[in-house]
C-alpha cells in the first residue's frame, strides 16, 4: 500500500507527460533490439524482435512497438530482471519514469482508435541524432 502511494506521484507525473517522451525513450533504449525492420547482415529481424517472435509465434506481434498489452508493472519487471537472453537494466540506464513513459506510449500508440490509422513501415532502427 505504501509502495503504491509512493509511486502515485510518479504515475501522475508520467500520465501528464506527452506520449512522445515514451517514444523517444523507446527509440533510443529499446528499438535497437526490439524495433521493427530487418536485423544486421541479412537477419530478418532485430534480435529482440526475433526472440519475441520465437516466444509468441503468431499469438502476439513481435515488434514491441505494436504491443498495447504491456503495462508499466510488467515492463518494469522484465527490464529489471531480464528474460532469456535479455539482460537486466539499471535505474541509471532506464529510470522508473522512463519505463512508465514507454508503457504510456505503447498504450497510447496501440489504442483501438490509433490502430485504425496507417501502420508505420517498420523502418530499421538506426541510431538517430534525436
Amino acid at each position, binding site marked *: 500500500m505504501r509502495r503504491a502511494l509512493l509511486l502515485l506521484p510518479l504515475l501522475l507525473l508520467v500520465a501528464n507527460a506527452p506520449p512522445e517522451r515514451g517514444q523517444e525513450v523507446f527509440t*533510443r533504449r529499446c528499438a*535497437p*533490439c526490439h524495433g521493427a525492420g*530487418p*536485423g*544486421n*547482415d*541479412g*537477419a530478418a529481424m*532485430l*534480435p*529482440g524482435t*526475433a526472440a519475441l517472435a520465437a516466444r509468441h509465434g503468431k499469438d502476439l506481434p513481435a515488434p514491441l512497438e505494436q504491443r498495447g498489452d504491456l503495462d508499466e508493472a510488467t515492463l518494469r519487471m522484465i527490464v*529489471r*530482471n*531480464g528474460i*532469456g*537472453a535479455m*539482460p*537486466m*537494466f*539499471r*535505474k*541509471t*540506464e532506464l529510470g522508473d519514469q522512463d519505463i512508465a513513459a514507454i508503457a504510456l506510449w505503447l498504450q497510447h500508440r496501440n489504442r483501438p482508435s490509433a490502430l485504425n490509422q496507417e501502420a508505420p513501415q517498420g*523502418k*530499421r532502427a*538506426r*541510431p*538517430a*541524432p*534525436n
Partner: protein
Amino acid sequence: MAILPPGISAATFATALEALRGAVGADWVFSSDDDLGPYRDSFSPVWDTPAERRAGAAVAPADVGQVQAIVRIAAQHAIPLFPISTGKNFGYGGPSPNVPGSIVVDLKRMDRVLDIDDRRHFALVEPGVSYFDLYRAVQERHARVWIDCPDPGWGSPVGNALERGVGYTMGPFRDHFGASCGIEAVLPNGEVVRTGMGALPGSGSWQEYRHGFGPDPAGLFAQGNFGIVTKMGFRLMPAPAHYRTGRITVPRRRDFVALVDKVNVLSDSFTIGEAVYGSPLAALMGRPDFLALATSAGGPSDAAMDSAASAAGLPSWQVELQFYGTEATTAAQWDHARDLILSAIPGALAQAGEHFPLPATEEQVLNRSQPYHSLIRRNGALGIPSLGIWKIVRDNGHVGFFPVLPRSGEACFAMQRVLGDALREFPLPPYFSAVTAPLYWHTHAFQMVFAPSVRRDDPAHNAMVDRAMRKAIAVAAEHGWGDYRAAPVYQDAVSATYGFGDHVLRRMIETMKDSIDPQGIIAPGRGGIWPRRYRQQEHA
C-alpha cells in the same frame, strides 16, 4: 539481505552508505535487493551459486567531485569499490564486482561528450557515454570523423577501451585502448590525475600526444585497479569518402599460410581495414562425415581436407578485404591487394565485392547485396553502433575465452588442433576445428574464440562450462596462448598464466598497487591484482 565485503561489519557498511547518500543524494545510492538485481552479471556461469560475485550496494555519481567524495568515503571505511561505465561488459562480468559486497560505482550518469574535433580528429568523453551516444553526437555536430565501435554498441568507449576491447575499422582504431589518448582518473587517495599532455596545465595536445613526459601510467588503468577513470580521449578516423570490399579465396588448406602472410603486409602497411577470414568448408559442418573429419583427434591431414574441399567444389579459405578512402584510392588498393595475393598463391581467386560512396544508405548498411557469402559485420565496418550482434546470444548468455595467437597460418592450425583435442571431452559445439578461422580484431595479433553458453536453470551445465573454460585457459597457456580479457571469476586463472619470471610482472604491479592503494579499495582483484589485505586469501 545485504552482502557485505569481507571484513566489513554491517554497521560500518551502513555508516558508509549514509555518507554516500550525503555525497550524491539518496536517489543515487542503491542498496535494496530490487535495486541491486540489475547489478548482477546476467551472463554469470556461477549464477545463484556461492561463487557468484554480487554487489553490496551501488552508487551513481554525477560528476568528478562526487567520484572523489565516494573514494574518500570508501577509504575512510576500507570498503572496496568497483567502477563501471555503462555496465555492459557481458561475458566478462557485466556490472558485477570482483569482490562480493563491493560498492559498484555506476558512472552511467557521467554521460557528457566533452569534445569532438574533426580538424585534429579526436573526442573526449565521460565514462557513461555509450557508443550510441558518441555516434549521435558526431552526427549532431556534423563532424567529419568516424568512431570505431565494438558489438554491441551500448557499451562505453571508456569502459571498452579500459577492457582493451576491439572493433572493426582500420587497425589503429580497432585497438580501442591503443586509440585512446589522455586519461583523467580519481586516484585511491581522492586526487585527480591526468596522463600524457593532460599533466601539463593549459596543454592543447591532451588528445594528440598520449605519452607526455616520463613514465606513462595510462596502461595501469586498463584491466587495472589504480583509479576510477572520469574522462578519456580517443583518436578518431577522418570520415572516408568511399568504402570498398573484395574477397580472395584459396584452394588448398596449406595456402592459408601464404594468404595470412600477404594480408599481414597489407594490414601493416595500412592498405586494408579488418581482414575477415573464413572457411567456405564451414558450410559442410552439418554433414556427419565432414564434421568427423574436421574435428578428428590430432587434426585432419592437409590431404584429407584438400580432398574434401575438392569433392565439394569449394575453396579451403577465404579472406574479405575492406578499403577506406576515395573511389580511386580504394580501387587502386584493391587492385594492389588482389595482385599481391594472386601472384603468390596458385589457384587463388579474387572477386570484387560491394563498393559505395559514404555515408552509406540504409540498404547498404543492411549488407544484403554482396555477390558472395560475406562474414563482414557491416555496421561495425562502417562505425555504426548497433545491437544486431545479440542474435548470437543463446540461453542466458555466454562466457568468453579469446586466446591471443601469432598472426600466422601455422599458429592457427596448431590452435585448431590443440584446443580442439583439449575440449573434445566436453558436450559442447566444436569451437576449434579444422575450419576455425582466426579473428583479426587486434591490430597485430590473431585471436580465436571459445564462448559456450550459460543457463541459469542448469547448474550442471554451467559447472561443465566452467571446467571447460579452466581447461582451455590452462592448455592454451601451455602452448603460449593467453587470454586477452576475462570475467572476474576467471581473472586469477588467466593472470596466473602470465607467469614469466615467477610471476614477476604481477608482483611488480602488486607492489605499485600496495603503494598507490594501500587500503585496496579500488576494484580489488581486477586483472588478477589483489591488494595486500586480500592476498592471503585463495582466489580460484
